[in-house]
């Protein structure tokens, strides 16, 4: 038993590295409190919701040198290192983008203070999940992300919203239960909750059994669920269809990347530097192939842009997992690069889909002929779509090139033919994905149709879109800008 003063000291030490999260949790409370007053205008709420993640971001960047040194805080419940810090920056930027997307339509949201505070709570959960090294902590932070997400999915307060939110909740609680069940077995086998310790790996290696395999896969189910990887992807099209656009954009990045982060750490632990008798590379490769093909083939027939993007995000999860499958430092670096590009492209597209939706374009067919009137927005959307497809000259291509080169390298190292299949299959899927990614620009530019839209090129959406496009193109012409930074990240558990 540790002395009280010792544990207090430990907590005090940990607090220093925990400032971004404290800011976020303070922000959640502040937004709820401020929302109680009638005099507070929506703009003030938006401002607060914008400042909080920016502050957290600034603190992380300012303390980068300190935060990037691997350290265990709060008795090993959390771990700060450059991997989690990078992801936290990604989350914060996504949150800022989400608030910006909400900003122009803040008056449409009746319960704005709750809306923002739940977003911040999910962000807080994602921060925690990226740092978790302890099964209990993983569960708590995953639930924080999940419960917030259930609320956000229904935040439009429509029939569809309730349906989506409820579906999400039912699927989510089942997945959580499975995960928890898996955790309990793992705890029984290893006697430790901290999956980064050598004891955990040692016990896993010694007690090899089918039950352990099943328990590990059950534990991972919770992560696959968050990532929306097949076969646990079923919730995502319904949820995407029901939720407002800023929330979908947020969902497609923050919970997904948080899931990817914990999946990375957890599978690294289970894989035990390749010593594990269970071939995790094989299992994850199968999941990746499934996600890529289920996502792409299902997206082909979609007529609703939101559902289309939902299936696209399932396929993109598969591509992100390619980086994990490689089980190499390069693979993880490239995955972070891919995640960053994916974040930019997704916000670009959802930003425009939101403004198109406001003009009444809510099916792919309704885009017919609008390309002439909305030339700039459509061209920028096209660039976003090409980025997700992975064609040059966008950084989507660079990201795909990188992530698949790490896979090729892994194949060269191990000679497992499943990796070659994933490589060939994943890349050929690009051709299929082109078909649906181009469908909206295709209708807009090529199909004829009359529109009487009033156009104004000087809008906030266009400015925001242009900034994102510049970032996407810049990362193609000079990937060093980001990769130089990502490459310094360590992947030691």
């Amino acid at each position, binding site marked *: 038993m540790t002395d009280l003063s010792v544990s207090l000291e430990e907590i005090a030490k940990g607090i220093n590295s925990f400032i971004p999260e404290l800011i976020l949790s303070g922000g959640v409370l502040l937004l709820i409190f401020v929302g109680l007053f009638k005099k507070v205008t929506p703009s003030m709420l938006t401002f607060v919701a914008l400042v909080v993640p920016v502050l957290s971001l600034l603190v992380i960047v300012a303390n980068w040198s300190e935060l990037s040194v691997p350290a265990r805080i709060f008795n090993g419940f959390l771990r700060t290192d450059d991997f989690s810090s990078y992801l936290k920056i990604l989350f914060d930027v996504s949150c800022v983008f989400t608030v910006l997307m909400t900003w122009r339509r803040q008056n449409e949201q009746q319960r704005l203070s709750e809306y923002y505070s739940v977003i911040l709570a999910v962000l807080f959960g994602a921060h925690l999940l990226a740092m978790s090294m302890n099964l209990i902590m993983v569960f708590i932070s995953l639930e924080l992300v999940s419960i917030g997400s259930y609320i956000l999915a229904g935040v439009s307060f429509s029939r569809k919203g309730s349906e989506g939110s409820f579906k999400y909740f039912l699927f989510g609680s089942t997945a959580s239960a499975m995960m928890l069940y898996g955790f309990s077995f793992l705890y029984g086998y290893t006697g430790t909750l901290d999956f980064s310790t050598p004891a955990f790996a040692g016990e896993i290696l010694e007690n090899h059994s089918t039950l352990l395999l099943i328990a590990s896969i059950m534990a991972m189910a919770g992560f696959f669920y968050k990532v929306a990887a097949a076969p646990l992807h079923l919730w995502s099209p319904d949820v995407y269809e029901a939720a407002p656009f800023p929330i979908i954009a947020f969902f497609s990045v923050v919970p997904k990347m948080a899931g990817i982060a914990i999946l990375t750490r957890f599978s690294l632990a289970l894989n035990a530097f390749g010593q594990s008798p269970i071939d995790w590379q094989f299992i994850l490769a199968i999941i990746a192939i499934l996600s890529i093909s289920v996502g792409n083939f299902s997206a082909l027939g979609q007529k609703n842009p939101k559902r289309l993007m939902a299936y696209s995000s399932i396929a993109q999860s598969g591509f992100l997992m390619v980086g994990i499958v490689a089980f190499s430092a390069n693979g993880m670096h490239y995955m972070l690069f891919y995640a960053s590009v994916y974040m930019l492209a997704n916000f670009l597209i959802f930003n425009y889909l939101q403004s198109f939706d406001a003009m009444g374009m809510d099916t792919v067919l309704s885009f017919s002929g609008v390309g002439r009137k909305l030339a700039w927005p459509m061209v920028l959307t096209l660039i976003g779509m090409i980025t997700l497809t992975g*064609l040059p000259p966008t950084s989507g291509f660079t990201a795909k090139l990188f992530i698949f080169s790490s896979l090729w*390298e892994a194949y*060269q190292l191990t000679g497992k033919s499943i990796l070659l299949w994933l490589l060939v299959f994943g*890349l050929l899927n690009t051709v299929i994905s*082109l078909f649906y990614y*181009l469908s909206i620009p295709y209708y807009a530019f090529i199909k004829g149709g009359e529109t009487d839209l009033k156009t104004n090129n000087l809008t906030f959406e266009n400015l925001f879109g242009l900034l994102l496009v510049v970032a996407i193109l810049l990362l193609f012409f000079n*990937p*060093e800008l980001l990769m130089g930074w990502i490459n310094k990240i360590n992947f030691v558990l």
Partner: protein
Amino acid sequence: MQEILLSLLLTVPLAAAFIALFIPSTMVKIFRYIVIIANSIQVGILLIILNGYKALGGLQFVEHRQWFTLDLGAWGILKAEYFLGLDGLSLPLVALAVLVMLIATISSWTTVKNTKGYYILLLILNTAIMGSFTALDFLLFYLFFEFMLLPMFFLIALWGGPRREYASIKFFLYTLFGSILILIVMIGLYISVHNPSESGRLVHSFNVLHMTDATNFISGSILDPNNPWMIGIYNARQWAFLLLFLGFAIKLPAVPVHTWLPDAHVEAPTAISVVLAALLLKIGGYGIARIVFPIFPDGAVHFGWFVGLVGVISIIYGGLNAMASKDLKRLIAYSSVSHMGFVLLGFASLTTEGVAGGIYQMFSHGIITSMLFLLAGVIYDRTSDRTIANYSGLSIKMPVYTALVVVAFFASMGLPGFSGFIAEIMVFLGAFKSGSIQGPVTETLAIISTLGLIIGATYYLWTLQRMFFGPFNLKGNTATDQVYDLTQREYVMLLPLAVATLFFGIYPQPIIGIIDPFAKHFAEFVLNAGKNLTLNP
């Protein structure tokens, strides 16, 4: 000056496109002049290049700069370069590209709606084509190669004929499929090859020249020639050869992956058909000569007979399809498939004559097919009808036009005196010689390929007879007074091509002189290196 000439060639159209972006779309005339100025500057640059090019100088006008470098820790360094250069393979094609782009602009002078978008896309396409022909870094090449797809897709889909949507999507999907195959091998190559000039750390680069040297492969890597991995029935290098070959064969296009071409050609507007046939197809041939054969010479020796066979099948099958075509543009499109078969056969022979003939065929076909598509466009502009059976006796109403059609048809069927003849005779020489130097093409294949000439003569002469001779008669909805002879603009675009095909048919030396050193080195290198790698793995 020499160090930036190629960059200038690439950036002039891009800069023009950027300027055009900010001009309101109502000022139609300005766009035309911007494009024609950009094209003229390119002609000027080309003249400077031709003046300074030394036939025996190897790679010239080289530009070698860093693009980006990534330090990957223990794994080494990833280096992508901005590496451009010209040699005997690329110079004729660059010259062709500059000429054809100029003529494409002239041919779409007055016939195009929505001028702004059209010309901007054409300019972007121009940059991508020039880039593909000059890039010597695989990643850079791939960038330009893929970047051709989008402008081309929109050019066909927005300015094309009635079935343009189907044709443009088909074009896009086929070509993207091909380029993904290329991408797979590109990733493998860059993992397997290191840069020998960098000592100390392992530098992975995309430099195509390094990839051609077997000693630069990292030992133990998948594509290492000394110890290639077996994947199923072939080793990894042979698979890589097949994937790359298929990728470029789709672009070329070779039978049986040619089916996008007739659709795309029939639906595309005239100028775009010209660019497609004269330049985009050549990038398929260029890729085979620049990348596939030199990097995988063992594959070239092993599968050379297969490449030759695909070539011969394309020659015969394309020709037969052309004979059966009812649409004039479709006929020309299939004749392109047939003629590109000669390129494959020439390369596969691995003889100096054959390779030089293949490159010469690409150049000559670019000129002749441009002329053919422009001629088809001339009649389509007047009557909106390309059905061969709806015309007869056109020579009575359009004598000059008919004369030019005769020139183009004769040139295309390879009659002596035209550039097509020189190209095809060299390919045949190479194909027949190949057996005697233990090359991959057998004499049987060579003999069968000569049938292509007869088939070519058949469909061209038959078309001439049906459309141009006999009593003047128009079927369909066309009024007789819509048919008139060539206008001034049409003279400007057609005559230079007619003169060029005649000139290079009578005096091929200017081009042959440029091609020959490359072809000689290429044939010897691929045959010897391929045999060495196959015998002593």
